């Protein structure tokens, strides 16, 4: 039976077109052996229909191979897999093609970023996109590079923005039709953020959407004086796309300076918002702002998770969003209408919503010279870590942090290419764990996977960890949930109830989203930890 399955999958693989057309990406669910986009599909659910690994055999997972990157940076990329070839990145900006069966490297393309590059939070990269026979990578010195997927040779290389002004690209690009869409990081350097689409064949820029409206544009009035010029609004996580509505959705980062909003009075659109854009023109269709006039660094840079669900008794096209500000949201993705917002961690900066979905602020909960304790803390209730939605369980799964920060207001002046943020919040737990020893208590902070019912925002279960987690989440058609944490554990949980089914200690911080693929009919689970990529599969029967 096993041999028949393997043969069938070989026949199936042979019948696939060699190139990854956009039609293939649109119908990614039909080829679950491949992982064609950063989030597994354009709906970004991180849900795999592969079903070989299941609760009854997950204890038989064993390590198949490890790719040790030649980098000591955090390994934040989610790999793509196309017909047996894996494409991932090695920090800062190498693209590596790997034989997904054996872990052998097929080719390496190495880009040496300019010394002007100044990404805020590590010389990291979160992965690549593919279209046709071309791989696309953004770089920390704000280039976008197109490579031949078979050889790693450069096809084109364009400079997207000025690295020395603080612009960088750290996320995996998103391909929509014949365009490659990227945004720029740099929200701590007083950039003016934007999202741009490039022609996949030539690298020519087709459109640019500024995340901060210029003079004369709607929303410009939400910035006092000239503050819009240096207002941040970075984009550093991959967006999503709904082909039926022809809208692409992107999360926008914090306004700058991060922790002192005195000189940018107003709501500061479209910082901390989701924007819905026409992918053909870059025109804004709608937006929803999660955190107006933010002074807590609550970037809305989470991956927009799209799903067609039963919403209070009738089908609805929604977007689900667990935000850095500690709230879980359900939004109508056709119109941008706010449907639901509810804390998934402890939140003390707001205490409800008005009828339009604007958060009602708690008086006094703002940064002050003396310091104010805010929940969640500066890293947020969650951050960029990919959540997952399982259409089978109907639950939304969030990598969560339960903790707080003390925000202190200090004056800050802009200078090109210099940090433009304010006073770094003080945290009861370290922002980034500095060592390999954890001596914190649960009262100071902890991490958890939390399962939320999108119809109510209620928590269905949680799986607690002693330390926080920067791991994304993968769910599967067998109701497995894969996730990791800073301690280095990589877990398989029962997606229905959070029960622990399997664990492995990878020995490094997991700062990436797990993914699944298959070669020759065998299912694999891949996750990056420390500076290496670990690939698991069921032990072969001998």
């Amino acid at each position, binding site marked *: 039976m096993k041999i028949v399955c393997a043969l069938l999958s070989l026949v199936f693989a042979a019948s696939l077109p*060699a190139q990854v057309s956009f039609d293939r990406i649109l119908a990614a669910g039909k080829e679950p052996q491949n992982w064609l986009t950063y989030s597994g599909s354009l709906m970004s659910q991180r849900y795999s229909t592969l079903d070989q690994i299941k609760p009854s055999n997950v204890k038989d997972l064993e390590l198949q191979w490890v790719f040790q990157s030649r980098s000591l940076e955090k390994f934040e990329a989610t790999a793509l897999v196309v017909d047996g070839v894996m494409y991932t990145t090695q920090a800062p900006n190498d693209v590596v093609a790997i034989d997904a069966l*054996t872990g052998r490297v097929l080719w390496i393309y190495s880009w040496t970023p300019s010394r002007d590059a100044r990404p805020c939070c590590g010389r990291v990269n979160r992965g690549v996109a593919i279209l046709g026979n071309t791989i696309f990578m953004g770089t920390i010195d704000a280039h976008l590079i197109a490579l031949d997927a078979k*050889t790693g040779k450069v096809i084109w290389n364009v400079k997207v923005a000025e690295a020395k002004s603080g612009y960088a690209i750290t996320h995996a690009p998103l391909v929509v039709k014949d365009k490659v869409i990227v945004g720029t990081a740099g929200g701590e350097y007083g950039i003016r953020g934007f999202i741009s689409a490039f022609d996949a064949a030539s690298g020519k820029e087709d459109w640019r959407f500024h995340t901060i409206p210029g003079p004369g544009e709607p929303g410009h009035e939400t910035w006092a004086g000239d503050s819009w010029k240096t207002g941040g609004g970075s984009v550093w996580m991959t967006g999503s796309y709904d082909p039926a509505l022809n809208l692409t959705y992107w999360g926008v980062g914090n306004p700058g300076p991060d922790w002192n909003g005195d000189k940018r009075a107003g709501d500061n659109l479209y910082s901390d918002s989701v924007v819905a854009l026409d992918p053909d023109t870059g025109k804004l269709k709608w937006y929803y702002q999660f955190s107006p006039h933010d002074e807590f660094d609550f970037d809305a840079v989470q991956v927009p998770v799209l799903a067609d669900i039963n919403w209070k008794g009738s089908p609805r096209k929604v977007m689900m969003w667990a935000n850095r500000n500690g709230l879980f949201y359900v939004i109508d993705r056709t119109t941008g209408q706010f449907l639901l917002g509810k804390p998934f961690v402890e939140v003390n900066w707001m205490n409800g919503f008005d009828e339009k979905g604007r958060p009602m602020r708690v008086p006094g909960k703002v940064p002050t010279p003396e310091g104010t304790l805010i929940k969640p803390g500066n890293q947020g209730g969650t951050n960029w870590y990919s959540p997952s939605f399982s259409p089978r369980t109907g639950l939304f799964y969030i990598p969560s942090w339960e903790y707080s920060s003390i925000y202190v207001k200090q004056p800050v002046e802009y200078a090109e290419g210099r940090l433009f943020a304010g006073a770094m919040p003080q945290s009861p737990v370290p922002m980034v764990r500095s060592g390999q020893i954890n001596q914190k208590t649960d009262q100071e902070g902890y991490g958890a996977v939390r399962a939320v019912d999108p119809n109510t925002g209620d928590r269905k279960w949680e799986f607690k960890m002693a330390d926080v987690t920067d791991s994304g989440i993968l769910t599967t058609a067998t109701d497995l949930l894969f996730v990791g944490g800073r301690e280095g554990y990589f877990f398989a949980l029962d997606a229905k109830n959070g029960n622990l089914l399997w664990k492995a200690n990878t020995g490094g911080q997991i700062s990436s989203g797990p993914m699944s693929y298959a070669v020759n009919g065998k299912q694999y689970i891949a996750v990056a930890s420390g500076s290496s990529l670990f690939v698991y599969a069921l032990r072969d029967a001998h």
Partner: protein
Amino acid sequence: MWTLTRACSLILIAGAMYAQHSYTPADVEDGGRLFRGNCVGCHGTEGNLVPGIDLGHGKFKRASTDEDLVNIIRSGIPGTPMPPGNYTEFQASTIVAYLRSLANTGRGSGLSGDSARGRALFAGKGACETCHRVGSEGSRVGPDLTDIGTLRKPPALEASIVNPDAEILAQNRYYRVVTKDGATVTGRLLNRDTFSVQLLDTKEQIRSFLLANVREHGFVEKSPMPSYKDKLTAQEVADVVSYLGTLKGIDSK
């Protein structure tokens, strides 16, 4: 006493060599052997694979005199991939002698080519794109030539066209796999280990084989490239060489 005398005479010899740049043919031959055995992995057979360095044409980043070169060959360059080499000073100086001799070689036809005609021949009569790729055109099966003009000198290009078997770079050798069910696959070797081998096959597909499923495998000795000695005229070869010389890679925009 004997030791001191010998050391002094070595210094004198070495000093004379540095000063006069005169090396015997045997020195050059020895140096070439050491160079091919130890240096071409990074620097290439022509000494110009490391960007910004062309060892055969006196283009160095940190050396100007022969003495500098000897020091670098023996001590390496800290903070770069250039390692220290376990050579005597005399051995290092023969490598320098060989490098200096490279500048004087050049066995080309001497014909001057027309790059526009060469481009037409490349795509047309020569059918070079059947195997080679330039930018986004042509096949990936043979070596990519997008930046060949920065990697190879005209005489080397001409030699590769008229006599492709004479020298095949390690990374361009063809590899052949025969599976246990009798299928033969050839292609460019991408990687191999004790248990598996990976190729880009002649259909430009990336293939991975577990050796447990392979009957035989190994390098193909001859180049898959035909000789153009009798297919193109000397002038046409010069035209193609001229065109290849214009291929300098893809710049950032």
